[in-house]
């Protein structure tokens, strides 16, 4: 059973992405990396060091970068676009939607510093709407890796998609969920802990925190199932519906607005399946987040292990 541990265990999703991109670049000369003066932050600078001819900086001009990515793809390249999630999803949204998504072009939009990870950066830099925005674009695959290993697997898999993808990366290191890339496949949710009393469906750093919450709940005799829905679009309907069937209670957890993100996607699935389960969305309420150190912000919005466990208890007591 023992398999070699992934080299990306313990890395943040952005670090793992940056390292895998270099590996991929060695094997595939069509891969190019684009940034808008954030190559060091989003780790495409490592690709630029090894492949300076295939790395393009557009300066602080995200619209031009996203449009140029479409142009590079039209001319046969596989562009990896990097910037912060807030800029990828808002400043360059129309180019992403009209030039990239409508074109159904193989552009990979790799957006770091998502959710609250920029901490004191505040609402100008926090990104709590990006999944909602990208989920609304036809043709777009939306990926939120749980940790470094998840990001490595997703980055590798994304190369083979024929259409565009949005990959949401974290600045901070996520709690470790995976030890191996084996078994991580786009479009298939991973049940990372079995349980029968309720299901916690999470993405990104909230997967590891949900596992910690499940451990806390287990100490109280509550067996929580934890599912990593790393591919929010297309969502794994089967896994979500089965878990709801089998546990009767579903809690979604995401570092994103509760409007339009993972929680909304799961709600859509459950409603259309006709499943009247107990259901709650945990995320950023419909308001702009406050500022502060990242871990404190996470706790403030109840997205740490204690907050998730508390919400789970409340939901079960309903």
């Amino acid at each position, binding site marked *: 059973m023992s398999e070699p541990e992934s080299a990306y265990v313990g890395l943040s999703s952005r670090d793992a992405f940056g390292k895998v991109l270099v590996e991929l670049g060695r094997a595939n000369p069509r891969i190019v990396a684009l940034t808008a003066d954030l190559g060091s932050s989003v780790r495409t600078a490592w690709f630029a060091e090894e492949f300076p001819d*295939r790395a*393009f900086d557009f*300066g602080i001009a995200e619209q031009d*970068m996203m449009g140029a990515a479409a*142009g*590079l793809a*039209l*001319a046969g390249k596989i562009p990896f676009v990097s910037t912060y999630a807030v800029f990828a999803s808002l400043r360059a949204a*129309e180019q992403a939607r009209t030039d990239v998504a409508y*074109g159904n072009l193989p552009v990979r939009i790799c957006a770091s510093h998502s959710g609250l990870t920029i901490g004191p950066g505040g609402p100008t830099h926090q990104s709590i709407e990006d999944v909602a925005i990208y989920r609304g674009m036809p043709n777009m695959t939306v990926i939120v890796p749980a940790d470094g290993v998840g990001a490595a697997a997703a980055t590798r898999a994304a190369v083979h998609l024929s259409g565009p993808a949005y990959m949401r990366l974290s600045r901070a290191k996520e709690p470790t969920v995976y030890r191996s890339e084996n078994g991580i496949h786009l479009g298939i949710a991973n049940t990372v802990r079995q349980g029968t009393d309720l299901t916690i469906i999470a993405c990104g750093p909230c997967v590891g925190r949900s596992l910690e919450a499940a451990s806390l709940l287990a100490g109280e005799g509550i067996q929580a199932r934890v599912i990593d829905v790393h591919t929010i679009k297309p969502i794994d309907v089967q896994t979500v519906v089965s878990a709801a069937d089998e546990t009767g209670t579903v809690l979604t957890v995401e570092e994103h607005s509760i409007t339009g993100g993972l929680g909304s996607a799961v709600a859509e699935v459950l409603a259309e399946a006709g499943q009247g389960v107990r259901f709650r969305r945990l995320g950023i309420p419909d308001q702009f987040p406050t500022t502060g150190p990242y871990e404190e912000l996470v706790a403030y919005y109840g997205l740490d292990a204690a907050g998730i466990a508390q919400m789970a208890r409340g939901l079960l007591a309903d």
Partner: protein
Amino acid sequence: MRRVALDLRADIVRAGRDVDGGVHLGGSLSLAEILSVLYFSILRVDPQNPHWPQRDRLVLSKGHGNLALCAALGRRGFFSIEELSSFNVLGSPYSMHADFHRVPGIEASAGSLGHGLPIAVGMALSGKLDGAGWRVYCLLSDGEMMEGSSWEAMMAAAHHELRNLTAIIDRNRFSLDGPTAEIMDLEPLYDKCVAFGWRTRQVDGHDVAALLKALAPPPEGDQRPTMIIAHTIKGSGVSFLENRASSHFGSLTPLQADQALDELRQAGASIGLEEAMG
């Protein structure tokens, strides 16, 4: 090429008469010579093999000029010009804005302004990276030079030394609501393009010879992208449409269309093309 330009204008006028709901007349008519010169002299394209890897690429950034572009592609043989009669009909490949999924020969979808030059920059970066021989041409409206993204791309093209990129601004001096000088003044446009690091030329956009000369390849060693400011007349070739913001979009009555076609016929006769206007 002057003959082709008149043919394109006749195609546009007939669409103005026949297409329900109207078409973009003014900004299509102003493109006639530019598209004629590009598709019948400059661009290395193969209508039988629209995805030929070594072809030159034209991005019509002013996607609302799609009627003129489709007329040029049809006349060049990418499809039968007769098909243009389905313009804007439900499910037709030919409609208001340029769409590369639907029409052979169209290189990029466009319609929202300020998108085309960034796309052209990406194509030119790819060509440069590969050491390819093909060039990228981008056809812009003057109005879309009000978009910040156009100037982002202007900076990037010069910064990345894209000598394989030529942009042409259809300087017809009108945007939807009125004269650009009143809506948002673009002048001094030539100076701005020069200041952004482009090899910049100004020509009469209805003068075929001047366009041909301006479109000659840049001299060896000059790494700058090329900008051609083509001074044109919105609605060019049809007296009652010229230089009017109201000619941006609309329909022609059969009577107006007859008059317009008659004017085009006379223009053809004046340059010895009595048999033109098919």
